[in-house]
């Protein structure tokens, strides 16, 4: 079986495919690209969260004839951004539903003039009452979306939760909250668009999903598929933040290109990007948990509410993933999850690494520590008594057919971190030290690939071809934005065919060239697309063996000679494969039951945190992450994914707060939206246990999102261990620590010495 076989290139730390170009400063990001006669675009945005547009006024001191001006009336096709539902307009028409919603677009040859002109467009509104929080939306006294403000709801039920309460030895309840989080990719959103009556629309941009943008442009311009072309440029970070937003920005730039007759570049500055683009959904999760005398779970009743913002965008699928991750990696006979995504008059929340799982995992893993404390059990022991094992069923009745090695991961995490010895030591030291230290743990899984029947519906197509100048090209719309797509997919092809790493390159991420291998999201690229490339590569070899006289045990030179023979006889040397679901995968969308994900990656995080009771700062001093994510295709890149995700998770827990004022982000600058720096990130120790997954590319499972799920609960659990005080909400800033810790001085303990 290929996933277990010894490999030459897969599993090796080969250097990043596009690494040299990036290191030389030669990689071309969208803002590094100029087009002939290019103009610059800018956006006039709403300044209120909800209201009717009464008038759009243009200051007479500006000569508007120099500008291209676009409003909703200029849209040739449908005025909506295609995603799941068609409720989000491309440009507001008559009404705005959130601050910073696009109303008017401007373009001009002079970058400075177009920026100045934005302030010279005056919008007059009749304000309408706005809904700015989950609680306001739930009350439904003001309905701002549909008939009830409810963007989506799910009900997941296993067993009978209500019947379980009576027989429980313990019942523990808790409520947990998470805030919005900004992706803070260092490259802001940006695109360049051109329009031509014959060729249609061409867009170059910083984006994750070329075919999402493609589909959206088809609707906005009412054009056939071959008249829209989307090309991804080098992308400076994305993390989900360039999953759906580029469809809006590309539509805007293309409308301006059509109106002006010029190429139009729109690159947001940081303030605009922070104020107007998507963030992670804020959440409120309630747990009610029943246990027996021995600490075994009897029932978990979970209620999830997320803030979706003004339009539905991806809120339904984010909520689905939150629902499916909310019971944690535990066996429980009775589970009920009731989840709801609520509409508010805020900038629509969107995809962000983890996609609902970090919110759900924060709640359940914080709650497990509260349960442990309530029933007087060690938090590690409570988890161990309830872990899922091979053959167990999850809350959706999915049988764990692949090995589940949570105990092994836990043992390794405890050993590597010196968990118990440290806790013992800190208990002693904390008595006399104003800096209180503690250890915290989190156990979790992350489902790889699209949820439920998602991968089947995507029906991805990917493959390889061979160019006349002797290179194998990987044909995918899966994009590189730092996570390593280029490297791992070329490794897979080189391995499967039997070539050198340098023999394989990526075809340009251009919808005019590559097939639709699905969006670059959901930790699916290595596993799902990697498998397609593995299959397509083996299929190519078989084809050449059957039809071009390629012998067994061929050399590199013989392979390329066979390709030339094939080309001369039959034409293009190409091999494409379509997605095939693993057997025994069944998902019932109606009952919300079955194989929620084809595979799960598993992880244990341990955080060592110091809380300074003089300054009220919390510092993560050390961090351990043990995971099983299938086969590791490239240890350097995989390690980098885990470390980067943990750093982002530390920011989520302790630093990153989106401050809203009447629905507008007030701290939309890097000066006051704070992410962890080189001085804030602790040493991060990363360990992999590898169990190849037979339906993933060379045994890979998803890895990209997993590391963002654990840090926040592990850190807040460590803070509880350090201070004895429970915090249930993130971000947890020094002022929040102060409010609770100052009210309950820890000095008492010191006095007791």
């Amino acid at each position, binding site marked *: 079986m290929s996933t277990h076989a010894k490999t030459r290139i897969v599993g090796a*730390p080969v*250097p*990043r495919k*596009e*690494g*040299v*170009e*990036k*290191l*030389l*400063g*030669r*990689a*071309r*990001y969208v*803002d*590094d690209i100029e087009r002939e006669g290019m103009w610059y675009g800018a956006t006039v945005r709403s300044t209120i969260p909800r209201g009717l547009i009464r008038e759009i006024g243009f200051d007479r001191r500006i000569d508007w004839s120099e500008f291209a001006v676009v409003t909703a009336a200029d849209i040739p096709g449908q005025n909506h951004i295609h995603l799941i539902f068609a409720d989000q307009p491309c440009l507001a028409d008559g009404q705005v539903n959130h601050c910073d919603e696009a109303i008017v677009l401007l373009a001009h040859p002079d970058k*400075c003039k177009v920026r100045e002109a934005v302030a010279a467009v005056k919008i007059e509104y009749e304000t309408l009452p706005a809904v700015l929080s989950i609680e306001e939306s739930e009350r439904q006294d003001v309905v701002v979306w549909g008939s009830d403000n409810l963007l989506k709801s799910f009900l997941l039920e296993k067993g009978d939760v209500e019947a379980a309460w009576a027989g429980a030895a313990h019942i523990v309840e808790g409520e947990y909250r998470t805030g919005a989080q900004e*992706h*803070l*990719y*260092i*490259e*802001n959103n940006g695109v360049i668009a051109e329009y031509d009556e014959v060729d249609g629309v061409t867009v170059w941009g910083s984006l994750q999903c070329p075919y999402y943008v493609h589909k959206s442009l088809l609707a906005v311009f009412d054009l056939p598929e071959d008249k829209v072309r989307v090309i991804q440029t*080098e*992308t*400076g*970070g*994305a*993390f989900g933040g360039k999953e759906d937003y580029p469809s809006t920005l590309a539509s805007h730039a293309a409308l301006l290109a059509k109106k002006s007759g010029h190429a139009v570049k729109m690159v947001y*500055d*940081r303030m605009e990007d922070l104020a107007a683009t998507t963030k992670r959904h804020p959440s409120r999760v309630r747990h009610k948990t029943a246990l027996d005398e021995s600490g075994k779970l009897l029932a978990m009743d979970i209620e999830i509410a997320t803030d979706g913002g003004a339009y539905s965008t991806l809120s339904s699928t984010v909520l689905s993933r939150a629902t499916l991750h909310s019971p944690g990696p535990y066996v429980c006979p009775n589970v009920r999850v009731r989840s709801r995504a609520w509409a508010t008059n805020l900038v629509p929340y969107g995809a962000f690494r983890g996609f609902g799982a970090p919110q759900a995992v924060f709640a359940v893993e914080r709650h497990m520590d509260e349960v442990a404390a309530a029933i007087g059990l060690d938090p590690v022991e409570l988890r161990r008594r309830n872990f899922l094992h091979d053959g167990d069923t999850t809350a959706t009745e999915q049988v764990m057919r692949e090995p589940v090695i949570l105990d092994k991961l836990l043992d390794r995490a405890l050993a590597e971190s010196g968990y118990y010895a440290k806790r013992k030591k800190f208990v002693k030291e904390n008595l006399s030290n104003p800096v209180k230290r503690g250890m915290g743990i989190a156990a979790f899984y992350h489902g790889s690939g699209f949820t439920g029947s998602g991968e089947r519906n995507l029906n991805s197509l990917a493959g390889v071809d061979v160019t006349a100048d002797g290179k194998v090209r990987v044909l995918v719309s899966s994009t590189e*934005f*730092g*996570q*390593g797509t280029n490297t791992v997919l070329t490794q897979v092809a080189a391995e499967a065919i039997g070539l050198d790493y340098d023999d394989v390159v990526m075809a340009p991420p251009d919808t005019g060239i590559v097939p639709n291998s699905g969006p670059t999201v959901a930790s699916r690229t290595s596993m799902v697309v990697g498998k397609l490339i593995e299959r397509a590569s083996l299929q190519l070899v078989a084809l050449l063996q059957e039809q071009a006289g390629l012998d067994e045990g061929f050399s590199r030179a013989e392979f390329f000679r066979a390709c030339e023979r094939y080309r001369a006889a039959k034409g293009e040397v190409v091999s494409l494969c379509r997605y095939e679901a693993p057997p025994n995968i069944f998902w019932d969308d109606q009952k919300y039951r079955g194989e929620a994900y084809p595979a799960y990656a598993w992880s244990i995080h341990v955080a060592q945190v110091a809380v300074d009771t003089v300054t009220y700062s919390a510092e993560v001093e050390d961090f351990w992450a043990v995971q099983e994510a299938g086969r590791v295709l490239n240890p*350097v*890149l995989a*390690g*980098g994914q885990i*470390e*980067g*995700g*943990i*750093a*982002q998770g530390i920011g989520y827990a302790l630093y990153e707060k989106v401050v809203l004022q009447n629905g507008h982000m007030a701290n939309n*600058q*890097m*000066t006051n939206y704070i*992410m962890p*720096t*080189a*001085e804030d*990130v602790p*040493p*991060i120790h990363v360990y992999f246990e590898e169990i190849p997954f037979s339906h993933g590319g060379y045994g890979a499972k998803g890895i990209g999102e997993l590391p963002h799920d654990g840090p926040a609960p592990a850190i807040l659990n460590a803070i509880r261990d350090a201070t004895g005080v429970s915090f249930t909400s993130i971000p947890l800033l020094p002022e929040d620590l102060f409010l609770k810790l100052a009210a309950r001085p820890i000095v008492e303990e010191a006095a007791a010495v």
Partner: protein
Amino acid sequence: MSTEFSSIDFLINGEKRSVRVPPMKRLLDVLREDLHLTGAKEGCGEGECGSCSVRLNGELVNSCLVPALQAQGARIQTVEGLALDGELHPLQQAFLHCGGAQCGICTPGMLMAATHLLANNPHPSMAEIREGLAGNLCRCTGFTRIFESVISAAAQSGEERHAR
């Protein structure tokens, strides 16, 4: 911004260059627009992210905060000036092998900060590396492999000195 233009001369990556630009034009824009050196990136425009870092007369600066007139007569080094005759600089080599670059957008600035650090302190401690790179934000790596890259490059240059 003044629309008057001034002639500004400097030595960039060892080469004499002259531009006519408004004196308050940001050095970052002069590099990117007038000299087509697009290695330095704009991440925030307010000196927080460091992705526009260049060295100016041996000092590490955020080129988004430096007006062009301040660069008059200066020696400027950008990421484009690191590799010599197509040979990667030891830091670039180390970043490549240790995984110090992911999406690559902070990399040019990070490389300049690391170059500056090692120029002044060839064998920095971990605390000194953290401090030296604290003005450069990376959202992908969690910094761990960037630290390893700097340590590896520092060790390598030590070995080279020994070899001589």
